[in-house]
């Protein structure tokens, strides 16, 4: 009974699907979260009669062979890097990216991580850090005497100091882009790491060709669409049920056989 095992692979795949959907729904209000989607592939096939073989009874060539597929597997769980909507917070260190690119964060281990979550704050030393206290690259220090901080669309950080009319440039934000952003590896806390699949990061100022612009006083909300997730959840649940129907049908066939006298 191949069908028992085939339906088993179908149930496992749908379970992964529901797990991915539930993670999306759980993160629907996580800043900068990108929704995931599980992707399925058919498993290998077994040839009962190969295409083009001769059928013995008539000597003619088979127009199509008999192939039985052996089920389904999860091919990938990939991130959909569609822009999330921007929500205004009026917080002067909340920075959203409109378009391509990631902020670069120095982890305590010295590694560089990438994020779309621009809810930054100042450390006691006046350095721009993430909500977890990790330094935003390249280190930008706001002087203690700064009264007003403006970050423009191209990432220039301008501070108005006491007694000066002209705002002073105190730093420049950089964005990183990748040949394949789907290849970035998520490590939690809204952070991503570069991987051999993503390619190396290429840095430039926001607003350069191919790079997004930054927006002060806004955060990028998650791009999870609840309606889509719920409909996907319903579909996944029904698909799970259908696979279990196949299992019970195969089971019934087996029990018919075992009851055969």
């Amino acid at each position, binding site marked *: *009974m*191949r*069908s*028992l095992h*085939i*339906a088993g692979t*179908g149930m496992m*795949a*749908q379970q992964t699907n529901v797990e991915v959907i539930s993670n999306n729904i759980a993160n629907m209000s996580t800043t900068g979260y990108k929704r995931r989607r599980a*992707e*399925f*592939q*058919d498993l*290998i*096939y077994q*040839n*009962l*009669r190969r*295409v*083009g073989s001769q*059928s013995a*009874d008539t000597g003619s060539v*088979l*127009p*199509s*062979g*008999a*192939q*039985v*597929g052996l*089920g*389904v597997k999860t*091919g*990938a769980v990939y991130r*959909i890097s*569609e822009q999330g909507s921007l929500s205004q917070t009026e917080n002067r260190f909340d920075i959203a990216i409109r378009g*391509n690119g990631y902020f670069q964060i120095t982890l305590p281990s010295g590694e560089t991580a990438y994020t779309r979550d621009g809810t930054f704050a100042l450390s006691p030393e006046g350095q721009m850090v993430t909500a977890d206290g990790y330094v935003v690259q390249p280190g930008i220090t706001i002087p203690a005497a700064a009264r007003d901080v403006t970050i423009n669309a191209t990432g220039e950080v301008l501070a108005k100091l006491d007694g000066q009319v002209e705002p002073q440039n105190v730093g420049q934000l950089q964005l990183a*882009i990748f*040949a*394949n952003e789907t*290849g970035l590896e998520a490590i939690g806390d809204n952070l991503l790491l570069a991987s051999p*699949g993503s*390619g*190396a990061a*290429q840095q430039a100022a926001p607003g350069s*060709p*191919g790079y997004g612009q930054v927006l002060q006083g806004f955060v990028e909300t998650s791009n999870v669409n609840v309606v889509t997730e719920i409909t996907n959840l319903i*579909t996944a649940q*029904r*698909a799970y049920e*259908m*696979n279990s*129907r*196949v299992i019970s*049908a*195969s089971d*019934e*066939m087996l029990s018919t*056989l075992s009851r055969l*006298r």
Partner: protein
Amino acid sequence: MPSERPWEAGTRLAKSLSHVICAAFGELEPPAMDSPGYIVLSRLIAQTRATAVTANNVANADTPGFRAARPVFGAVLERQMGVEAPQGGRDLAFSQDRATFRDAAPGSLAVTGNPLDLALPTPEGYFAVETPRGERFTRAGRFSLDAEGKVVDPEGNALLGTDGRPLRIAPGESRIEVQGDGTLRTESGPAGKVRVVRFADIQSLQAEGDRLFAAPPDLRPEPVASPGVVQGAVEGSNVRPVIELTRLTEDMRQFQFVAQMAEREGERLGTAVERILKRR
């Protein structure tokens, strides 16, 4: 033999009896008294395989570009042994699942907004990808970029252009546009054209798993001039759950029905043997 089932015992007895009878009448071969049993068995085996095909369809109801498969049953005819046509000489028809054919209907398109998700609205087109085993074809237009900027499928197989080479996006180019005729453009101009092919006979395509199809050597892929590629959408599976579940119920009932027939046939043989033995 207590472990033997009555049906088997009956068959064995009937066979040896028929040998005796045949010897008496000078015939060379015994009439196949147990052929109903074997015909029923052929159907049970075919039905089990048919259920496996349905199960695989249901399992792949969510696989992009998947094509539902259907079993094709055929009769294998065999001349009834020792009986000359036409009188009583009807052929025995064994059931066999001769082939599987693929449902060619297009699956529904799901809009994803991903620039490298491509779909073919016409049912006959296929994308060509380069695998270590040679050129393979797929309907699942879920592509992304790899670290070198090549357009690849989830397994890392490169999507081929009309020139037979993998399509490539230069680093730093971010605006990817695919036009209806398959031309791939970025902000710095055209970057190639997606190879879309069709086949004279899609039933000869061999499914390989990972949503790929292999073409047999004598089946030439023909390029499609205007494929009408849709960007930002992916073709789903063309499995229709209603049909699969109905088929599943049908498969199961047929199996039970045939199994019941096997049981009756066993009983009939048993009774026949019993009667013959009583006559003695």
